[in-house]
């Protein structure tokens, strides 16, 4: 069985997650352009999601 493909997705709080490439993206989530296996997507997120605070919290601080 072919391995499922996933997308790296992000919401307006700039929180990352993954989503099955063949399903409609839920409202409020955006495709970041990175796709791959589950593990590849998670590894990618490990490198790009450097500040895990929600955007509203981050902005309130600065």
């Amino acid at each position, binding site marked *: 069985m072919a391995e499922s493909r996933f997308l790296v997705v992000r*919401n307006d709080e700039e*929180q990352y997650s993954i989503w099955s490439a063949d399903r409609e993206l839920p*409202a*409020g989530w955006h495709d970041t352009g990175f796709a791959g296996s*589950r593990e590849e997507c*998670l590894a990618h997120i*490990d490198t790009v*999601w450097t500040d895990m*605070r929600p955007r509203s919290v981050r902005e309130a601080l600065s």
Partner: protein
Amino acid sequence: MTDILSASAVQAEPLPWPDATLAELIAAQAARTPDAVAVRQWDDRLTYRELVDRAAGVAAALRVRGVGRQTRVGVCAERRPDLVVTVLGVLLAGGCYVPLEPGGPRARLRAIAADAGVRIVVGDAAAAEFGDAPGVETVAPPGPAPLAACPARPGDPAYVLFTSGSTGRPKGVLVSHRNVVEFATGCAALTGADAATRALGVASLGFDAAVIDLFVPLLLGGAVQLVGADDRADPARLTRFIADHGVNFGFMTPTVLSTLDPAEVPGWRTVLCGGEAVPAELAARWAPGRRFHNGYGPTETTVLAVSGELTGAEADPVPIGAPLPNHRAYVVDADLRPVPPGETGELLIGGPGLADGYLNRPGLTAERFVPDPFSGLPGQRLYRTGDLVTQAPDGRLVYLGRADRQVKIRGQRIELGEVEAVLAGLPGVDRVAVEAVDGPAGAELVAFLAPADAPDDAALRAYAEPRLTAAMRPARTLRLAALPVSPTTGKLDRPALRALAATARPAPADDAVPVGDDPVTRAVARVWARLLGAAPGPDTDFLAAGGNSVAAMRLVAALRAELGRVVDTRDVFTGRTLAGIVERIIAAAPDTGDGLTTGNPPTLSPPQRRLWFVDQLAPSSAPYNIAVAHRLRGDLDVPALGVALRSVAERHDVLRWRVPQTAGVPYAVREEPTDVAVPVVDLTGGADPEAELAQMLAAGAAHAFDLATGPPWQVTVYRLGVDAHVLAVTWHHAVFDGWSEAVFYDDLATAYAAAVTGGDPTLPALAATYADYAVWRAERDRRRGDADLAWWAEHLRGAPTALDLPRDRPRPAVQTYAGVEAAVTLPADADRAVRALAERRGTGVAAVLLAALGELLSRLTGGDDHVLGAIVADRRLAAFDDVVGFFIDTVPVRVRTGGASFAELVDRCAAELHEVTAHPGAPLERIVEALGVGRDTSRAPLVQVLFNVLNFAPPKLALAGLATESVPVPKPGSPFDITVYVVERGGRLGVEVVHNPDLFDADRIDALLADLAALAGALAAAADAPAAEVGAELPRPAVRTARLGAMTVAAPAEPARAVALPAGPDAPTDTEELIAGIWREVLERDRVGVTDNFFDIGGHSLALAAVHARLTAATGRSIAMLDLFRHPTVRALAAHLDGAADRPELARAALRAAARRSRTRRIPPRRPGGTA
């Protein structure tokens, strides 16, 4: 969205919550109610003002060190009110607290601190745990400071909790103020918690249930009742804490809750239970009369996400309920597509409780927190719980298990992979697998190591202790040449491992015999074996043998109850091995806590009063004597023996007590030490000295002591030759018990050894005396008597109060105390089957034999519910260990059979034998009174069959220069119809009985015992079959059927009612007036009806004794106390007295005179100095 309608999805109602931080809300509460108590631990209380002022001090100290918004600060504090101050201080500074619990594995603690980037650790234990940690500054809580505003915003993190992670590395969950405030608001709405809430603070700070403990009450103006470490470790202390602090609200895991008794904490009205599956049985026990909520929630969704109220009538698995306000739940398949209601799927949670994610673990966060395709709310996430649930037809969610390899051990979530990853690092281990299996004390971890010569338990323990928490350490380890692999998948065969773990439960090794006669070792070993399913050897490790903290709590509770030692779970974990634990118990200083006072004057204890009363009823019999004899070979120094015995009596003053009475109230008088008379009876000239000896020993054992004149014991030496003597000692049970025997022998040996060599035979004075016990006990019984009594009343509700076995003779109208002994040894196969079953069920053999006896009883009586008696040694304080005296309580044991397999019966009996030791505050007399058991002169109240498992190994008497050998002495009598002793003789289990020959023929008892042994073996061998169907031919018909006409009560020798009772509401006679007046005084009642039953209107044994004394004094006649029993109404007794007097006219005249006197001269009411 259309598929959602037919999918398992539950959406809760919205509920607004304050948009503020925890610190702001608590400070606002403090401004409203500054003087209300915020935190309490016994006498240590913090008002809201004190809490906030002191927390402001902590915050100021932290700010100086650079702590501000979102700074993570370690909290390392003991469980004292300052813990709450410290946590609030971190929050007030704007920081986020990271629980670092003192006493945990240090390497893990430091790894967490490093992972969280903690630079500052605050708390009263910070310096001790982190003082030498590089790069970490420790701060002790300083004094109060003015409150400054909290710089944090609601979205900032409030705490980071580290939970077990699958990669072998714990993961930190980031939880915000908003998460917590929203949860606390919802929780209060659900439970009705308010400012009157006194919340139990029992969860460790590292467990998110602590949020319920701390923040729910503090946001509402309620008070945290913070349980200290010692109270937390012990069910009895925890119970006392809850009751004394008026706790009315609290969360507890089912494991801990199951160790408590709901009857003892009636004020705890709102119980939240969760953290692991809640058994229906637990809900049934706790739900009646209170609100009982099942709570479910991963740390990632902030404490609880799903909750539901449970009734007492749930079935396993009980529902976890519905989402909390503002939350939604979905049940999905592996592709995150909804499953229809009724099907199993993974539970996803959405709502404002969702944590931000895992600290510094973006990939893991993205994996577990996924986009929400169901709610239509833009940008929302759902947390994948990894838990399998199903939605029941009523809409409630039901938890079914873990989807991955997380398990719950004692409420803590453990990732098996994490444990495996750590163990794999141990040199010498090639492969490792860890599985959770059901153990005797809940789920336990079993580690499988390859190769077969992988490091041993000691090496594994040394390696695991600094790296794994107690719950993560394997309870047992099995070593295999290779781990089993599934032939189809090629993967590790985990089911095979679990099967292996279940069958490879440790068997008692050859050396695993509770060696020696030391009663402490034997008691610890016995309790240990019951809890862990196998008898320990001296070096067996408690944890390696399957022990865990719950098992340790049970061990401690049982040892306190059975052994009378003040033991702490710390003794178990520090001692570790059987020998180590015993050593700590023995070495423990005598406990002077728990209200023990010393230097008390002679004071009778309730059990002594009971025996005194039995003595009054049957003054010439001696069923309660304890008699021993020893053959002494060698040169016996009789004068030295006398000197030594005097020393023993000097040390144990209870041996110098006598018990006179005044006005029916017994009291103790202590005589000064005198030389102990040692009569020497010379049997050397007789035709058959041994036969004479046997006869004289029996006579000596049956000696009727007069407690009023004392002494309550006697010694005789029989001379059989120049170097051959027998030393016989008989004590009245009121001053002695089985435990006392070893104490007496040890002291006698010491004193005799000194005396024969002309040394000083004086023994050291005791730290506490029997009188100190009596006083301590009175206080203990006063304190917990009502709660214990309520437990007994509930426990025995509906139970039969009489047990009549098929017999050979009518029951004498007045109980006799004759006793005859009989015994049976189990056949080898029955012995094996009983032991194997005990091992399999994790119980003692006593539970198996009690269950077999219960089954036998139901076949004999046709009933399925019987009450027997058991013996409990009330030696709960170490200070009484060396004290000779009567520390024994008889307690009812309820055995319910019917509709169960034998294995279930054994479990019930094991639980029963354990539970009945835990309610010592209500002695048998109070229970009998509370149950309203009708008094009856023909039998002992409530308990007619005694099941005695307190079979202390016969202690050895060692006298200097003499070879000693115990000589059997016939038991002087039988206080019950039958007393059953569980014994072990020659490596074989057996049953010994003493029975009353006035009821039973010896043939019947012998056959009954043989059938009991056979039945026990058959039942144990077929333990899973319905018990009623096993060995249906047993017992034989001769045992089953009573002799014709024997199941009656014999007519009294003296007719009970020699005269007809006056009928109707006639004016009371003078005699009736006299008796009624005495009753009124003794019972402190304003009026007494002539037909009221004495025992129905508050009368009890000792009150009867008081009536007897007054009546005797008022009439100048000798009246048998039994007659008061037999004629329990004023009218019946008056009729008896008027009719039975030798010269009725004179007697009536005397009664009239006495009645006139009592009418004119009111005697002030006086109550006997204590209740029975």
